[in-house]
């Protein structure tokens, strides 16, 4: 128990020194000194609750992904039918209860139809399911149902894209070091240190930025629109709040429009005639060609510019627009036009994101907490150290040195594994100090006991460490169990607390048991005392 071969001594001291060295950058920063940038600098990050900033939890609605897939499938099926040159004719296309149904008019063409639909589906999941189930009932009625695997895959893809889009938009705002993490199946956490007013950020993330150009159905009568009646193949879209026609709706053709996902650029600019803020967009080749085709075929007809299901404006197509660029007008302010330009540049969000949790912390509170936490820790540590010294003498000195090294090592390990210190984490830090000396109390009390029973010095020390270590390990393992559960189930700050606890438990076992044993054994071997004061 008290035998330490030379390699072990070197090993233990190197661990200790690495731990202490790693703590130095964090300490100098806290004390206000700049750390030379050419040196490596592992440093403890401050959590949002200490540094100040905003935490936003966004949630997507998976059912939206499902309905988008139905839309997409309907469009693909119509496209296939149209390109069959009248060979296959279908009727009664409808989306009902999350399925797409249609009837093939000629029963002999059912197999041909099946051949056409099959390539529109693809594999999903690991066990060979496809993303759509194709059924034929009553001989000619097709029922296409998205499978759960297909939906799950679509949601995952949508969320991956959403995280990318969110990142691009936040980068465009120029905020520093944002953290953007996917959480669970359909959530995204956004943390921006230092951000005090998250309103701009939230309105930017709240905008799906799904841009569509659709032809206006001029055959619809205003009286019918008011009653909610639309011609077949068209739909009613409300005007955006803030536009002159706000509160009314417009009938537009459901299919045959152009989506804004073919843009290469979007910039805020001003209309040359009216000097109103507008958004100038540039299409890619494919989108430009489609746009040219649409505008050439529909000169002198109005088309609607629709953003996130709201009509921004419905200008007339005065001439074919073939250059691949266009201007979007729609009662913008310079700011809202700029925001839309950012959103369009970063691409549309594949799903709407809603803010379900938001936390903002001012910078003063955090700074105050750090200062008070440090004072509490210093006072607590000094008082505990004094107490330990007066109770255990030389053995107390060893425990005290172990305590100081422990504090530094916790900081060092936190810096090395790059964890974040949160407000409850400060409490965890202080608490660890009280708990860390428990190991030394147990050991020293046991040595006292063994001496009272008449054991010789070396034997008593040996027994003290041996007998106490059982309880120390059991107690620390139960603490780690609690901390691990805290980490698994806790959110942000609580997780930070759990990490400090676990690191503190490990370093305290190392310093309070291993290191003090090393020092005690070295002293015993050198001084060979026949009696000890403990």
């Amino acid at each position, binding site marked *: 128990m008290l035998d330490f071969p030379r390699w072990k001594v070197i090993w233990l001291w190197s661990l200790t020194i690495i731990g202490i060295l790693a703590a130095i950058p964090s300490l100098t920063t806290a004390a206000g000194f700049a750390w030379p940038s050419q040196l490596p600098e592992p440093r403890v990050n401050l959590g949002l*609750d200490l540094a100040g900033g905003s935490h936003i*939890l966004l949630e997507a609605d998976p059912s939206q992904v499902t309905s988008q897939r139905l839309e997409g499938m309907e469009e693909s099926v119509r496209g296939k039918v149209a390109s069959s040159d009248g060979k296959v004719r279908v009727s009664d296309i409808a989306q009902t209860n999350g399925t797409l149904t249609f009837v093939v008019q000629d029963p002999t063409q059912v197999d041909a139809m099946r051949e056409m639909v099959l390539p529109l589906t693809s594999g999903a999941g690991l066990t060979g399911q496809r993303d759509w189930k194709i059924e034929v009932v009553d001989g000619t009625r097709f029922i296409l149902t998205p499978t759960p695997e297909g939906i799950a895959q679509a949601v995952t893809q949508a969320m991956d894209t959403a995280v990318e889009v969110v990142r691009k938009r936040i980068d465009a705002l120029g905020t520093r070091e944002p953290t953007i993490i996917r959480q669970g199946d359909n959530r995204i956490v956004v943390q921006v240190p230092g951000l005090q007013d998250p*309103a701009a950020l*939230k309105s930017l993330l*709240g905008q799906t930025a799904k841009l569509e150009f659709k032809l206006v159905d001029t055959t619809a009568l205003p009286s019918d629109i008011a009653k909610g009646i639309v011609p077949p193949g068209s739909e009613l879209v409300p005007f955006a709040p803030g536009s002159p026609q706000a509160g009314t709706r417009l009938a537009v053709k459901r299919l045959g429009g152009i989506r804004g996902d073919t843009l290469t650029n979007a910039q805020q600019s001003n209309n040359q005639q009216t000097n109103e803020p507008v958004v100038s967009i540039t299409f890619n080749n494919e989108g430009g060609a489609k746009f040219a085709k649409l505008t050439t075929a529909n000169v002198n007809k109005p088309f609607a510019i629709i953003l996130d299901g709201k009509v921004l404006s419905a200008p007339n197509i005065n001439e074919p627009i073939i250059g691949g660029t266009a201007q979007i007008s729609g009662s913008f302010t310079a700011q809202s036009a700029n925001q839309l330009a950012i959103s369009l540049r970063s691409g549309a969000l594949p799903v709407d994101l809603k*803010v*379900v*949790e*938001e*936390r*903002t*912390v*001012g910078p*003063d509170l955090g700074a105050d*907490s750090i200062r008070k*936490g440090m*004072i*509490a*820790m210093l*006072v*607590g*540590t000094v*008082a*505990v150290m004094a*107490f330990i010294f007066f*109770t255990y*003498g030389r053995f107390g000195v060893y425990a005290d040195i172990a305590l100081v090294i422990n504090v530094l090592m916790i900081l060092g390990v936190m810096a090395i594994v790059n964890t974040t210190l949160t*407000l*409850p984490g400060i*409490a965890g830090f*202080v*608490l660890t100090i*009280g*708990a860390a*000396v*428990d190991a030394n109390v*147990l050991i020293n*009390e046991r040595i*006292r*006991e063994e001496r*009272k029973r008449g054991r010789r010095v070396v034997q008593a020390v040996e027994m003290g460490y041996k*007998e106490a270590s059982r*309880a120390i390990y*059991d*107690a620390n393992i*139960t603490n780690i*169990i*609690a*901390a691990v*559960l*805290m980490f698994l*189930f*806790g*959110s942000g*700050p*609580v997780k930070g*607390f759990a990490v400090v*606890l676990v690191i503190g438990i490990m370093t305290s076992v190392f310093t309070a048991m291993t290191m003090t044993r090393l020092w005690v054994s070295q002293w015993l071997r050198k001084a060979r005392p026949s009696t000890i*004061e*403990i």
Partner: protein
Amino acid sequence: MKLVKLVPDDTNIHFLKWRIPFFIVSGLLVLASWALVLTEGLNFGVDFVGGQMIRATFERSATAPVGGLRSEVTALGYGEPIIQTYGKPNQVSIRMKLPKGADHDPALADTMTRTITADLKAKHADVRIDGVDSVSGKVSKELGWTAFKALGFAAIAISIYIWVRFEWQFGVGALVSLVHDVSLTLGMFAVTQIEFDLNIVAALLTLIGYSLNDTIVVYDRIRENLKKYRRMPMPELLDLSVNETLARTVMTSLMMLITLTALLLLGPQVIFGFTAAITLGIFVGTYSSIYMAAPILIWLRVTSGSFVPNESAQDRQERLAREGA
């Protein structure tokens, strides 16, 4: 140097003599705590019930104008706020329910925050907004459920660990004293109406871990003594074990008291409730390790046979022969 000894050598206090009255008192305290939690309720923060919390400090006032604030905020038409000071008398948290429909349109919650903070700043020149928390009903339900799961799993996992390391009776004893400690701490939150938020759950998990430290130290000594003194009656053996570990118990409790007092008095105010929970829990934990965890072993009939395999008649004769020789 003369060393300090807080506990004299060879104490022989008959702790277990009062085990039945203390057990009854503890049982009553647990019942009272739950009765309070159920009747008075816990003062749940927005983490668990949803809503919005604005934290503010009145920098140049000794106390926050809580009454005035309440009528000012109510006048804004978003319903009646819950306003409490926390930490210092000039720091308040203002809690509101989220406006109707905010689950669908988060902009409504934003408008409410803006209206309230603008109103505060207009009417109080020295106000400093320290933070805004806004949690939707759905998220708060999930947070509550995961917190509950974390506590439950922790208690069970720890008990299983102790069962594996000791014997099943010890696992039961640890579980009972855990429930006791957490119940009394919850009772304290019901009495004081300190805000119960996510951090408090972390505090409860911590005290589950730390209050068990005492239990484990006592149990470890009981196990050791059971092997050493096979014929000693159980109450006497428990008393001996508690007395032998008394110096350590007092010393460690004192160390924890020192650091926690420093944190309570000098530490950050925002986590006052958190520190208070841990402080209370740790002392309840020390008590329960002596008066809950230990006597349960008597009632569950732990004997030295629990750790030493029963001897066959032949082994016994051989042992007696050896001991006689």
